């Protein structure tokens, strides 16, 4: 259980065709477990990059990210993968469900060839029930609506009981109403499971509901407001 994630002087730049694009500049942030954080900002402000760095999907060019004082990213790919499996659940804007698998199978994918102390199938059904899709377990992603797909994605992200949920514009591809429901679901998880939730969004209305709002622009954190929620 990672209690705290600390970013210190984190910088990320991409090289390509002779140009160097700086996505993140000197980020210093600390996240505590149980927080419900929204990251907002215009396109290209580095929100998603920050999320992928925190989620160990990528490595920073400069600076360090420590997870309870541990530098996970210095470890081998397999160790990082194990860390992701234990601690982090990802939710993507495009849902990224495996199109050939049913909802249930999709939810099961993180558990493939992993030893877990619980019954995998029971757990998968449980989380699908949790997201309200108990009747869509055997549907293929193409047979589900956007909101349903995202809920499957959320179920997949929480099936292995991570302590952190990272969501990259989870409501971006959804209509407002559905978006609200997804947001509520994340909030619920934050409340009930005590997961740290970090989500990137364009929607100021949704962001406003978070108890911490980080706004970014051009790779720099503009503001970091904590405890704004009433």
């Amino acid at each position, binding site marked *: 259980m990672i209690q705290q994630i600390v970013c210190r002087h984190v910088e990320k730049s991409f090289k390509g065709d002779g140009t160097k694009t700086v996505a993140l500049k000197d980020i210093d942030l600390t996240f505590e477990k149980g927080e419900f954080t929204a990251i907002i900002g215009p396109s290209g402000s580095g929100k*998603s990059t920050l*999320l*992928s760095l925190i*989620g*160990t*999907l*990528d490595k920073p060019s400069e600076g360090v990210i420590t997870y309870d004082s541990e530098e996970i990213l210095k470890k081998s*790919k*397999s160790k990082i*993968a*194990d860390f*992701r*499996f*234990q601690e*982090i*659940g*990802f939710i*993507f*804007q*495009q849902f*990224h469900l*495996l*199109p*050939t*698998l*049913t909802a249930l*199978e999709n939810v099961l*994918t*993180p558990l*493939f*060839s*992993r030893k877990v102390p619980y019954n995998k199938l029971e757990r998968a059904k449980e989380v699908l029930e949790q997201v309200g899709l108990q009747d869509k377990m*055997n*549907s*293929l*992603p*193409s*047979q589900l609506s956007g909101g349903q797909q995202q809920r499957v994605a959320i179920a*997949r*992200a929480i099936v*292995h009981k991570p302590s952190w949920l990272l969501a*990259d514009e989870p409501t971006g591809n959804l209509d407002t109403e559905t978006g609200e429901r997804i947001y509520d679901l994340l909030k619920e998880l934050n409340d009930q499971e005590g997961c740290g939730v970090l989500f990137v969004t364009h929607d100021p209305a949704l962001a406003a509901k978070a108890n911490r709002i980080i706004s970014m622009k051009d790779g720099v954190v503009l503001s970091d407001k904590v405890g704004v929620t009433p």
Partner: protein
Amino acid sequence: MIRFIWQNWWRRKERFILLIVGAFIISAGLTYLIGLSETNKGTIVDTLQQRWSASYDIVVRPEGTRSLTEDKKLLEPNYLSGISGGISIEQYETIKNIPGIAVAAPISLIGYASYDVYYGDVEIEEPGIYRKVMETTVDNGIYEITENGTSHFPLNVNWDYYNKFGYGAGAPSLDVTVTSYSLLAGIDPEQEAKLVGLDEAIIPLGTSRYFEESDSYYYDPINGGHHEFPVIVNQQTFVDKVETITFERLNIPISEENANEVMEEVKKNGADEYLDSIEGEVVETFTYTGEEAFRQFINENTGVDWETGEAIPIESEGESEDVDGESGADNITGVVFKPSPLEYQEIASPYADRWPYTYQVVPFQNGEDVVPRYRNQESYREPALIEEEFINYPSIKPNWIGFYDASELTISKDPTTELPMETYRPATAEFVMDEDGNPVNPPKQLKPVGDPNNFLTEPPGMLTTIEAAEKILGDEPISAIRIKVAGVTDLSDESQEILEKVAAEIENRTGLITDITLGSSPQLALTFVPGLNEESDFGWFQQPWVNIGSSISIFRETKIGFSGVVGSVIAVAIVYVWASGIVNLLARRKEFAVLLSIGWRPSQLSRLLFIESSIIGLFVAIISWMMLGFVHISSDTTITFTRFLWTGLFGLIIYVLGAVIPMILTRNIFPYEAMRSGEISGNSKRLFRARGINRMAFNHFIGKWKRSLLSVTSIALPTSLLAVFLYITFRLRGIMYTSMLGEYIALEIGLAHYVAIIVSLIIAILTTAEITWQNISERREEISLLQAIGWKGWHIRRLVLAEGVFSGLFAAAIGLSVAFVLMWGLYGEFPAEEIGFILATGVIPIVIGLVGTIFPAERAVRIVPNQGMVGNYSNRKVTEKRMKLVVTSIAVMLVGTFLFTMIKVAPNIETTDKAAEVEYAFSPTEGEAEIRQPVDTTEQDKSEENNAFTYSDKVDGNFFEILNEGENTTDKGSWILSYSATEVESKQPPADEGMKNISIEFTFEVIEDSPFTSYLMRPKREFTIIVDEKKYYPENVTILEVEDWDENQWLKGKMDAVLDYTVPDDVEDFGFVLRTTGFGDGILVWFER
């Protein structure tokens, strides 16, 4: 995991079908190429070993007995029958003791024993002058040859014939005797039994038996001395002849009283000629066939009846002996002729495509000092007398001990595949063209005529022991020794090595010459047999000759060639598997990134890919095994276990290896890729600005150059192979089809090669389809966008197809370049002649590129604008069911077709050693069309020329070349010879009434660099004037200038001569025709008056 993989396949059905089809093709291809072709090849080797194997591995001959034809590694059929001694018994013993030699069977061709068959005396009492006509009619298969001999004698008129000469009549000759020849050969009974099983071929008839220890030679010094020895006699006679002896009483009144006066009158009137002219009245006629004569001979000599094998009652024979008291009493006959070889001369083949080897028999011109029969005559072989003087001819008394049946020997028996190396059967010769080069349809079989000095070699008719041969012939009785070496069982390099060692050992120890005959095959050669003694030429004969050791080298090459082709199919299969693996990875890259981001380890991805590949590999292996098993059960084809195992394992290995590259590539997938949203174009390279569909397609093609390279490679590889193989086939066809073995191989192995290439090409189509498919999938958004902005389906289709065409074009360029390099490497020459069809093979890759993209293009067209982003996977029950049905039926169809073909084909492959199949394989060698074909073409060629000349009214037939008076062949482009003819003033005395003289001067010169160096030039025979189908031969030949004219027959240099003809007065226009070797059709010079 497995479930995950399965779902992944099952729900991407179109892809899955491609995958399955690929797996089926690979397994079917491998099954055929590795599993079945190998057995097929094995069958060919077996066939060779069983049928075309000589009974011996090495032949040892005396120095100087190699004939000219052996320069070309060719042996004439029954070549052994032409060797007369030369190896001593000591040399034979030495060879026998060389380690490793299992059988050393000597053969000594002693000579042609004449045997008289006496049927008793004719019973004539009436006084008179009689004529005895002995007529021998031999059917040589083409026509009947009749020889006449007449003699006259007065009977019962008390005329003193002992002291009267020059009357054309002599002592009464009342006996009915037929003379024949039989080749007598000596063998070592023990070795011959081991070599060909001669002891087993003895016919169990009466006392007939094989040689025993107690059978020995005995010299009887009484009455000038004769050799007595045991013989076993060939049961078959080969000569189809009829002997007729007729006694006529001449219409000359003669009695004891007027005998002297009448005879004086006869002498005065011209003796012989006078008697010949007198009519006679037939008194008695006796007719015997050759077989009857031979049987009688056996009966006489053995006292055993030919057919029943029972002893003939002594009385009947005794009676005739009593009457005559002389004939057949001792059964002593003589040996007159030694075997002698034919002399061959190489000539240019009239149809080199069909018979690359053509020879001409050079007749032997006899002088004064030979037996009367050949005096001043020509004969095919030099009549070699066993002794100089008649008095020294060995008298022999063969003691019959048994009959043997040559067809019971353990030598190849099928006449169509017989290797004519055994001396036990007559050589065959097919009369295929007459002297003018016109085909004989159907070809006629030449039969031996029983003349020791004729063209066809005869097998021995009587066999005795080497011991007897030595006593008759002296120190060096053995003609040849046939060696069988221990441990040599099959056609292989190892066998060849052992044989070379043994052969070298023999040469070292004895100084004799050796030839390795293992792996020899029949080779059809053409022989031109000229006419003897001014008779018209016989014509052209096709004979199966022996091509020494040809099969080992051909097999070595075929083996390498075949392994190469199979290797490349496997290479193409591996490229395909890689391509599909990589494509698979590319397609699922994002999916993998997502899996990584949700906590999968990279090793899990590798494992996933590995398991996937292994499953398909196993599937391929099982399909292959099933097919092999099924074919095995249903057609009794035997497949060795290791080959069976390997056929399946190969598929597995290919697929498992195919997983390696994608597994390595998974390391380059980073989890953050899951975060990226897809942009329409990646970072493709550009060469041209996209101005039209084609350029756009080209940019795509270049942009994805890595995968384009894969599809290009997979198409290019089989293309270059196809080009090279076609080239080799075309190049070899001439050579291959002229040797029976080559023909066999071309038919059997060629098929497997083409199947291999077809399999590769299908796999190439799949590879292209797979790659284009992926390109399309990646460009779904782009394509839907293009459709959204108004592109029509046809445009999109063209965009995709253009990409396929580019792949094809590149593949064609690369494939053909590789092919040319290969050809250069193999033959060291640029295929200038065949360039056209090699370039034509370049069309194939383009077609394949196109075909490979049709399926994906249709898919691209089906992308609907709004569908670009949405997945269209489904798991609806109905669709599932339908899908299952489709996949199952396709699988069943594929397997079914394959098995059906295999079962149909496999038994044929398997039964190649049965007569029917073999006949089929050889039919091209004796079919009518083949022979007719070249002649037809000449006819066509000439018919054009016919129009230009008016000769056709007067002269029939086709000519090799037609000239006008004074025109030279070089004017017509001949680089072989320079020839022209003009009329000159005749210097002959004026011709008879109604006739006139024509004199023609011709010049004939062999051009220096010409490959044909020698022409038969006997001006009296080769040059004729033809008018209205009538031929006129020269009356007189005046040679003005001549160079290099061997024996007044063979012209190698030039000749300038005047020929004088006498023709009817009314002849105006006429043709002057030269027919000589190489110009069987003749060269016509047309004289228009």
